[in-house]
């Protein structure tokens, strides 16, 4: 058992499941938006506004935003723990890894809050 405090859930199984479920949600949301743009109404402001005013679309968008945050965190955490290590970078590895994780976490949070503001402010 390897102890870790900065991954998503302290459990490899939880991270693994969260990454897969979030990937399915992101794929479904992307396919829906692409389908809407290609086959739906002309994407002018009125149509766009009508779409995003609906409760189900707001729920779907919020779910996609949460999924992006979760998916990006699990992915970036994995990358930082693969490449930004004391094994590869020497003693400064831990500071670099933790720093990169903090930056990723803050960026993730900013994107999430900004996304909520965009969806709800439409």
């Amino acid at each position, binding site marked *: *058992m*390897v*102890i*870790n405090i900065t*991954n998503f859930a*302290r*459990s*490899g*199984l*939880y*991270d*693994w*499941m969260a990454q897969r479920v979030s990937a399915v949600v992101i794929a479904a949301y992307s396919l829906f938006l692409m389908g809407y743009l290609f086959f739906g109404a002309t994407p002018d402001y009125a149509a766009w506004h009508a779409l995003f005013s609906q409760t189900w679309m707001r729920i779907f968008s919020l779910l996609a935003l949460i999924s992006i945050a979760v998916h990006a965190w699990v992915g970036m955490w*994995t990358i930082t*723990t*693969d*490449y930004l*290590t004391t*094994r*590869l970078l020497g003693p400064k590895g831990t500071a670099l890894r933790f720093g990169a994780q903090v930056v990723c976490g803050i960026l993730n949070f900013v994107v999430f809050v900004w996304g909520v503001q965009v969806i709800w402010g439409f």
Partner: protein
Amino acid sequence: MFLGKTLKVSVYRYNPEKDQAPYLQDFTVEINGKDMMVLDVLNLIKEQDTSLAYRRSCREGVCGSDGMNMAGKNGLACITPISQAIRDNKLVIHPLPGLPVIRDLVVDMNQFYTQYEKVKPWLQNDQPAPAIERLQTPEQREKLDELYECILCACCSSGCPSFWWNPDKFLGPAALLQAYRFLSDSRDTHTAERLAALDDPFSLFRCRGIMNCTHVCPKGLNPARAIGHIRTMLFDRGV
């Protein structure tokens, strides 16, 4: 493939007692058109240069001593014909990647064995020992096929990028194949403890499904599938 009278071979050389850095040394070996094994070629080189170091023992793919990287792919030198390892009329031989080199093609396997030991690769059963033996049905025994045959040559783990980056935390495909071998053994009663020990973000889940392990296994085993089975067992219990 047409094999000529001679073969050009490049071999990774490194003697930490006198070399500043590793280098590739070229040899020309007389093969007389024979599709011999890579180990035979190394033995011929050894006659030219006795300082060349490599491990070998059974010379028939059973002991797992001569795992090395031939033309970019890990395998056992004794059962790899040169016709499969020659690229551009040349045979290039490196030690197993990702493991510290002791000298030339000899690598330090300690980290590999440490990870193997962590999965407790022995039968654990809390019930009183029966008078004769613990019996299995043919179906129960069949579940161990394609798991128990591993010879610990390290071709899979040393070919796995996740093992290169975290050899102390990720157990690697060889150890995980053995973890599954005991998880699927009907006589073992420590399934819950074994699974609990694997549910952290590194030991098992650092596998990203790259599949190099299955691609290179000289015994034709499938560690990636075993890892998938362990994930399914964890998932079954976790949801």
